[in-house]
């Protein structure tokens, strides 16, 4: 069967679907290649009929998931609204969620595996699932046979189909080390991983369903919250956004917003600090300095529950252990079983006026009264406490100096820091903004540290919380997705922080499959860019610019077969042209997604059709409520986003002559929809999926009793060793002076243990000022600083095909202060051209005082209409309005050390550009009626059964 369709949208009408099905029947005898596609859905909840029913499901319009109710009329979803059972979004649903009714039925929703006739043509040949899997597995094998497994690499991210952690797992199952996502180092990883490093707990990220405490209505306690580079009202509109509205209005919670953008959260804030993009570290240090100088910190907590009183060895930069000073010292907290590690450190004792051991204990049991800020001689060396080191670093950042550097009013900084530090309880909720700067590690390190010295940890109303985990033993940081390394635990790799050296050594020695362990260590060693940026081990990712260079140059090896798991890489990756330029080096590109994007237009050779969320099965939590994604409808041959990879891997292993279960296969993804359903039922604690979906009112949501869910002060609970639980760090205390970062930079510890990676320059154990690579005034050619952020109409690279979003926000707007605009003769809604050394893009000027003079703001964008059937000269739609055409990944830059040290983040916010009047670019739509070709066409598609 071959059916060449010029444009996929046309291929997906009901009529074409029937044609395809008929052709498949003729060619394959119905039941082989297309076996699933014509089966009756057979599920009570998805049946067609002259009925109206309501199904409980969840929205996947962004990275938070709202519980929703879908109304199904005669098999067609006609209405979406929030599920009143949801404690946070309640009946709310935002425009992104509502867009699903246009997305799942969009003429752009692909329903069958398709092979690209030629890249850059958008001419696709519909093929069977069997053919597609065979093709993908064969191409991977060809590369592996010819060039070895490192010829293969994967990517994920970008929005719309979330496959991150099992994408990395798939890569490792092929024995290749290299997977990445455009987010990763630029989104989520830095702030999500720094919190466990600093205090061993959940990150205070309000965007990712990590942070629920402020929305605790069972025992509401949050009185003051700082949104640092986060805009929940826009990015998580109906969930955290709704929660913030409730907090501010119903509970009178004070808010500070630190954000160059005048977001709705900024507008509602008690204090808004619109700092110059990329200068967050200076402001963090200013807060540190002010709080220390004015003694606003929680002295008891800082003294006994942070590592700031520890005296630091100036040579190693690590805290002295008591045994290093007093060889005969007997640590009272030493575990007689040599399993759990609780070191004793060295402090300057105020009571005796001498340096003394600082053993781990409850504060009231402490034999010493440690000085937090002090310099003492230890072993003959002048040694500062960690607190003193921090203060010395911070104190130059006075209100005035910081104001000048960060473009802030000093009195506003002071008002903010006092509001934060003088609150009864407060917390910093940290957003994506700083992940997209060179200071991606230093900012979360600094803000998490601030919360620790304020004692805003593990108690009601804070943002550093543990939730329902309950300690029986001394808490340990181990390798899993929430704490340390993506899949390392499955391979036996990684040091369990909090356990003793001997215990760790023994664990490694006794790991049953040494070959597996060594293989994983080898993948870690060979992963691209990881000698410099070892923070990537947390997410099993490689460094994006480094893999790009490897593709370009073949050094140290050449990745050439690409499996992209989701999204539009040309819209989402920094310096998009540099990626476009290496596409010719890619021998074969396998993709999976529910839509054709610019990336598929330009790069894909093969694409697997994925489910939109109304076709999806799964579960997720809203606070202490577990809800389910229910497959409300199913069109064509779409599958759950884990399915193609598992199927490809199985076929690949057959081709490689492997039998039996693969020991490298750690992907926990089921390979069939029934497998997914079984997982959902299990997760919801119900015997069968049928029972679950037929009785959703009974089972959904599954509620964890609030008194079990909300737990505080766990660090004070006495655990098995008779000591307070403490925190899952090496010192068992909060580590604002982050020792793990030092050790990581030197050996890869704890991620690669037992492997010692080559050392790189030390990572900063505390927040230090990291100036942006580019600053106003550096280059007169590019006088304006530009930053970015989201708008409520889109999430990541998704929904540019959604007509109701597009008519409201048809083209990206570059926000500019009217005074700046006047200098360039730019008027409101003029088309403008924005250029950096990488290229130029177009946008419409939005004049607003919300933007600081000399600063621009622009949402990222791409234009799926550029390859609509109606275009005379179609193109990939990623060059016109895509801010990533002008961002830099520094692959061709002479900037020294342009990336964040720990995470290798490149800069997407806070770089220099110029602006001039421009013109509306080719092939893009702006008038509401122009978006008519994006209106839904698939509502008459038949309901189909499972492909697998």
């Amino acid at each position, binding site marked *: 069967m071959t059916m060449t369709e010029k444009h996929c949208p046309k291929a997906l009408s009901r009529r074409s679907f029937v044609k395809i099905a008929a052709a498949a029947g003729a060619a394959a005898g119905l039941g082989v290649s297309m076996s699933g596609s014509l089966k009756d859905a057979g599920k009570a909840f998805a049946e067609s009929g002259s009925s109206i029913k309501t199904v409980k499901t969840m929205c996947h319009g962004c990275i938070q998931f709202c519980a929703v109710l879908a109304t199904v009329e005669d098999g067609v979803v006609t209405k979406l609204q929030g599920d009143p059972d949801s404690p946070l979004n309640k009946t709310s649903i935002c425009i992104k969620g509502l867009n699903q009714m246009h997305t799942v039925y969009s003429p752009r929703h692909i329903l069958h595996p398709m092979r690209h006739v030629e890249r850059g043509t958008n001419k696709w040949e519909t093929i069977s699932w069997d053919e597609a899997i065979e093709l993908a597995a064969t191409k991977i094998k060809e590369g592996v046979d010819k060039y070895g497994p490192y010829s293969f690499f994967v990517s994920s991210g970008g929005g719309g189909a979330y496959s991150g952690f099992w994408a990395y797992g798939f890569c490792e199952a092929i024995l290749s080390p290299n997977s990445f996502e455009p987010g990763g180092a630029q989104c989520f990883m830095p702030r999500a991983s720094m919190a466990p490093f600093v205090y061993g707990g959940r990150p205070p990220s309000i965007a990712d369903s990590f942070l629920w405490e402020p929305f605790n209505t069972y025992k509401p306690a949050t009185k003051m919250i700082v949104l640092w580079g986060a805009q929940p009202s826009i990015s998580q509109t109906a969930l955290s956004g709704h929660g913030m509205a409730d907090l501010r209005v119903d509970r009178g919670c004070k808010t500070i917003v630190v954000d160059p953008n005048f977001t709705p959260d900024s507008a509602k804030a008690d204090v808004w600090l619109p700092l110059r993009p990329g200068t967050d570290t200076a402001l963090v240090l200013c807060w540190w300095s002010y709080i220390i100088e004015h003694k606003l910190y929680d002295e008891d907590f800082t003294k006994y529950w942070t590592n700031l009183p520890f005296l630091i060895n100036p040579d190693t930069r690590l805290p002295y252990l008591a045994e290093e000073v007093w060889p005969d010292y007997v640590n009272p907290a030493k575990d007689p079983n040599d399993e759990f590690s609780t070191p004793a450190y060295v402090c300057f004792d105020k009571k005796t006026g001498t340096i003394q051991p600082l053993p781990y204990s409850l504060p009231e049991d402490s034999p010493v009264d440690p000085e937090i800020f002090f310099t003492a001689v230890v072993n003959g060396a002048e040694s500062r406490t960690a607190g003193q080191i921090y203060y010395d670093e911070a104190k130059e950042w006075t209100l005035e100096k910081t104001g000048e550097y960060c473009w802030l009013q000093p009195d506003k900084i002071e008002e903010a820091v006092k509001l934060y530090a003088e609150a009864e309880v407060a917390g910093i909720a940290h957003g994506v903004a700083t992940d997209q700067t060179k200071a991606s590690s230093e900012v979360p390190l600094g803000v998490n540290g601030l919360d620790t010295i304020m004692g805003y940890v593990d108690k009601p109303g804070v943002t550093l919380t543990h939730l329902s985990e309950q300690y029986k033993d001394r808490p340990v940081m181990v390798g899993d997705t929430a704490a340390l390394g993506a899949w390392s635990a499955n391979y036996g790799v990684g040091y369990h922080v909090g356990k003793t050296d001997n215990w760790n050594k023994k664990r490694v020695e006794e790991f049953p499959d040494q070959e597996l362990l060594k293989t994983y260590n080898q993948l870690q060693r060979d992963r691209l860019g990881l000698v410099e940026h070892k923070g990537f081990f947390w997410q099993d990712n490689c460094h994006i610019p480094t893999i790009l260079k490897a593709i370009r140059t073949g050094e140290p090896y050449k990745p050439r077969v690409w499996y992209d798991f989701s999204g539009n890489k040309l819209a989402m990756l920094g310096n998009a042209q540099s990626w476009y330029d290496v596409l010719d080096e890619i021998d074969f590109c396998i993709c999976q997604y529910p839509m054709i994007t610019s990336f598929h237009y330009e790069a894909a050779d093969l694409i697997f059709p994925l489910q939109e969320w109304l076709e999806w099965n799964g579960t997720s939590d809203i606070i202490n409520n577990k809800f389910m994604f229910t497959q409300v409808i199913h069109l064509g041959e779409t599958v759950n986003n884990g399915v193609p990879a598992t199927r490809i891997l199985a076929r690949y292993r057959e081709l490689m002559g492997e039998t039996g279960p693969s020991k490298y296969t750690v992907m926990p993804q089921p390979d069939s929809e029934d497998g997914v359903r079984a997982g959902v039922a299990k997760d919801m604690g119900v015997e069968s999926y049928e029972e679950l979906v037929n009785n959703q009112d009974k089972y959904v949501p599954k509620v964890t009793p609030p008194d079990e869910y909300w737990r505080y002060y766990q660090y004070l609970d006495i655990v098995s060793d008779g000591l307070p639980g403490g925190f899952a760090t090496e010192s068992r205390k909060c580590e604002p002076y982050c020792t793990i970062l030092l050790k990581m930079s030197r050996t890869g510890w704890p991620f690669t243990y037992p492997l010692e990676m080559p050392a790189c320059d030390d990572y900063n154990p505390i927040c230090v000022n990291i100036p942006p690579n580019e600053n106003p005034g550096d280059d007169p050619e590019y006088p304006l600083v530009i930053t970015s952020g989201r708008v409520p109409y889109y999430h990541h690279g998704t929904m540019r095909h959604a007509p109701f979003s597009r008519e409201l926000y048809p083209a990206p707007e570059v926000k500019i202060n009217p005074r700046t605009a006047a200098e360039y003769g730019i008027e*409101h809604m003029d088309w403008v051209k924005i250029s950096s050394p990488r290229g130029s893009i177009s946008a419409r000027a*939005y*004049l*607003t005082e919300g933007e600081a003079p000399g600063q621009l703001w622009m949402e990222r964008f791409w234009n799926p209409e550029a390859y609509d059937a109606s275009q005379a000269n179609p193109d990939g739609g990623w060059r016109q309005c895509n801010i990533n055409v002008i961002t830099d990944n520094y692959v061709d830059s002479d900037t020294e050390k342009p990336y964040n040290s720990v995470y290798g983040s490149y800069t997407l916010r806070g770089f220099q550009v110029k602006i001039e009047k421009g013109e509306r670019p080719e092939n893009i739509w702006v008038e509401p009626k122009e978006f008519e070709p994006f209106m839904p066409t698939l509502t008459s598609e038949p309901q189909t059964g499972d492909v697998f």
Partner: protein
Amino acid sequence: MAIQWSLVVFSLLAGCAAGSLVFIGLAEITGTAKKAGFPISIIAGILLLLGGIASVTHLGNPVNVMSAVTNIFSFSGISLELLFLGLSLLVAIIYAIASRRESALGTRIVGIIGLVLGLILCVVLGSSYLIAARPAWNNFGLPLSFFGSSLVMGGFLFVTVANSVKVDKEDIKMTCVWIIVAAIIALVAYLAFGLLSGVALDPAQAALFWVAVVIIGAGIPTVCAIMLHANTGRKSLAYIGLVSAVIGGVGFRALMWVAGSGVLDIFGAANSVLPF
């Protein structure tokens, strides 16, 4: 808001016709109608008909006019317009028939009825725009401008036709006096509308207002009427007066729409940055 050209054409044609009916009536009273009455009543009838058609094109669907007719006694602005448009048309037809039958008493009675209806229609055309929601419209200058504009156009239409059918020059002189009065009313009305609505001082609209509406629409007709009064033989003055009055009439009506913003245009404001 956008200029509603259907309604501009409607009120221009209907106003011109209504004005000419007024002048027929005046001529009947002073006994100066004679030869001109018949052709003008025919022209007035045609203009009313065309105006009616123009107004119907403004409806969602032209056949909806039947609903408007069946609801004529709702006495809403639009039904009053329709009512007096219909009555005026009827009078124009009856007048034409009467003058064909050379019934002097008949034409006089019908002419006077036409004068009354014409005056009412001249006002009705504007009064339906006295809407509180449109601050620029909601002042006496607006209906008065419709009134003045309609009379000046009607007057010049009258003399233009009268000249071409060779009406006695002395009779025309009398008509010119009325036109002078009408033109002055228009001048005052336009000024009142311009100042009360703000268009006279709005930089975006002032040029159109002062040049097209005040000078061309009222000033030139006044001068023409005075000069015509002095020398009724100069036919070109009648043409110039008519064309100027029509230009002014169009300009006024177009400006009215341009300036006719609501108290608050919510849907428009959603797309723009509000000035503060």
